[in-house]
C-alpha cells in the first residue's frame, strides 16, 4: 500500500477517534510507519489532534510573576515604566523617545550619554546549598530568568553574580532557585509588594 492510501487511513482513524471510537490504527499502517518517516509523522500528528489536550503548551514558570510585575508597574505610573525602559532596554515602538533612549543604552552609546562613573558593579549573593541553578530576575533584565544566572564555582552552596547597573536606579528583583522557588534577597534592606500578595527585594543603586 502506498503512502497516499496510508494517509487516507490515518484520516479515517482520526475521524473515528473524534467520533468517540477508542481504537488503535490498523496494524498494516503501524507496520508501514516503522519504516516511513512521512507516515510516522502524520500518524504522530493525528494522535495529537485526536486528543487535543496533548497540544497544550506549558507556560514558563515565571510568566505569571511577570504579568504581576507589569500590572504593578502600571499601577505605579509613568515613572516606573520609564525606569524599566532605561534598565532593560525594552523595545517599545509606541513610545519613540523611549525606544531611542533604550536603543542608545543597549547599543553602547552609554559612554556618550552617561559618564562611566554612573555605572556601578553590584554583587548579589545567595546561600542555596543543594540548588542546581539560581538566577536573579528583575527590572533590569525584563524578569527573564535566562539572562543572569548565578554561579557557585567552589561548590560551597553560596551562589553569586556581579552585575553592572546604572547608578541612581531603583530595581526590583527576586532570586529563582531551580526554576521554581522564588526567594527574596535576605540581604536586601528594602522590600516592596509585588502585586501578588508577596514581596520583591529592591536595589537602590
Amino acid at each position, binding site marked *: 500500500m502506498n503512502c497516499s492510501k496510508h494517509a487516507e487511513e*490515518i484520516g479515517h482513524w482520526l475521524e473515528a477517534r473524534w467520533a468517540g471510537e477508542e481504537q488503535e490504527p490498523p496494524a498494516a499502517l503501524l507496520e508501514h510507519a516503522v519504516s516511513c518517516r*512521512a507516515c510516522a*509523522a*502524520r500518524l*504522530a500528528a*493525528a494522535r495529537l489532534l485526536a486528543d487535543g489536550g496533548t*497540544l497544550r*503548551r506549558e507556560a514558563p514558570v515565571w510568566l505569571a510573576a511577570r504579568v504581576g510585575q*507589569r500590572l504593578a508597574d502600571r*499601577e505605579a505610573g509613568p515613572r516606573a515604566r520609564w525606569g524599566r525602559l532605561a534598565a532593560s532596554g525594552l523595545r517599545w515602538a509606541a513610545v519613540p523617545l523611549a525606544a531611542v533612549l533604550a536603543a542608545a543604552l543597549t547599543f553602547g552609546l552609554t559612554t556618550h550619554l552617561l559618564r562611566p562613573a554612573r555605572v556601578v558593579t553590584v554583587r548579589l549573593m545567595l546561600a542555596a546549598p543543594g540548588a542546581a541553578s539560581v538566577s536573579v530576575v528583575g527590572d533590569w533584565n525584563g524578569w527573564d530568568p535566562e539572562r543572569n544566572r548565578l554561579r557557585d564555582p567552589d561548590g560551597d552552596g553560596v551562589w553569586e553574580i556581579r552585575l553592572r547597573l546604572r547608578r541612581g536606579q531603583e530595581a526590583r528583583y527576586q532570586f529563582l532557585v531551580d526554576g521554581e522557588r522564588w526567594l527574596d534577597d535576605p540581604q536586601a534592606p528594602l522590600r516592596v509588594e509585588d502585586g501578588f500578595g508577596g514581596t520583591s527585594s529592591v536595589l537602590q543603586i
Partner: protein
Amino acid sequence: MKGLAKESGNTRERRFEEASDLLAIQETLRGNRNAFAQIVERYTPLLYSLAFRMLGRGEEAQEAVQEIFLRAYRALPRFRLERRFHPWLYTIALNYLRTVARRQRRRRGLRLVREELDTVADRGELPAAAAEREDGERLAQEALAGLPPLYREVFLLREVEGLSVRDTAEALGVPEGTVKVRLHRARQELVRRLAGMMGS
C-alpha cells in the same frame, strides 16, 4: 491548577472556580490588587497555551499573555458580575490574538509559521521516538495554522482548551449550533491538510 473542565466532566469543580473568580473580581474592584493575582495564576497556563497555538511562537505568546491580562484588568470595571468570567476573558484574549495574528501574516506573507517547537525529549526516550514526536508536533501545528481562523479558534477552544460548547459559544459570541458546525468543518479540514502534508 487544573484549568477548565469539559461540561461532561467536573461540573462541581467548574462551579467552584466560577464562584472563586467572582469573589476575586469583586475584591479587585474594591481596590485589592492582590486579588487579581489569583486570576492571573489560574488563567496564565490556559491563555499561554491558546496564544502559542494561535501565534506559533513562544516569545510572542508570552508577550500576548501579558497584554491580555493588562486589557482584562483595565476592562474589569465594565465586567457585568452576572456573567461568567472565563468566557469573557477568552473573548478579550481572542480579540487581541486575532490582531496579532493578522500583523504576523502581513509581516510574513502566507508562509506558514514553523516554530521553535523546541520539544524536549524525555530522558528515557529513544532519539527516533523523539524525532517522530517532534515531526508530529510540527505537522499538527502546521495543520492548525493553515485552518481558516474561524475554524481554528473553535478547535483550539473546544478540543485543546477543553471549553464546553456553551463556553466556546459565549467566548466567540456565536450560537452553540455555529460552534458545532465550525468544529465539524475544522476537523474535516485538518484531515484533508494532514493527508496532503509530506511529513518531512
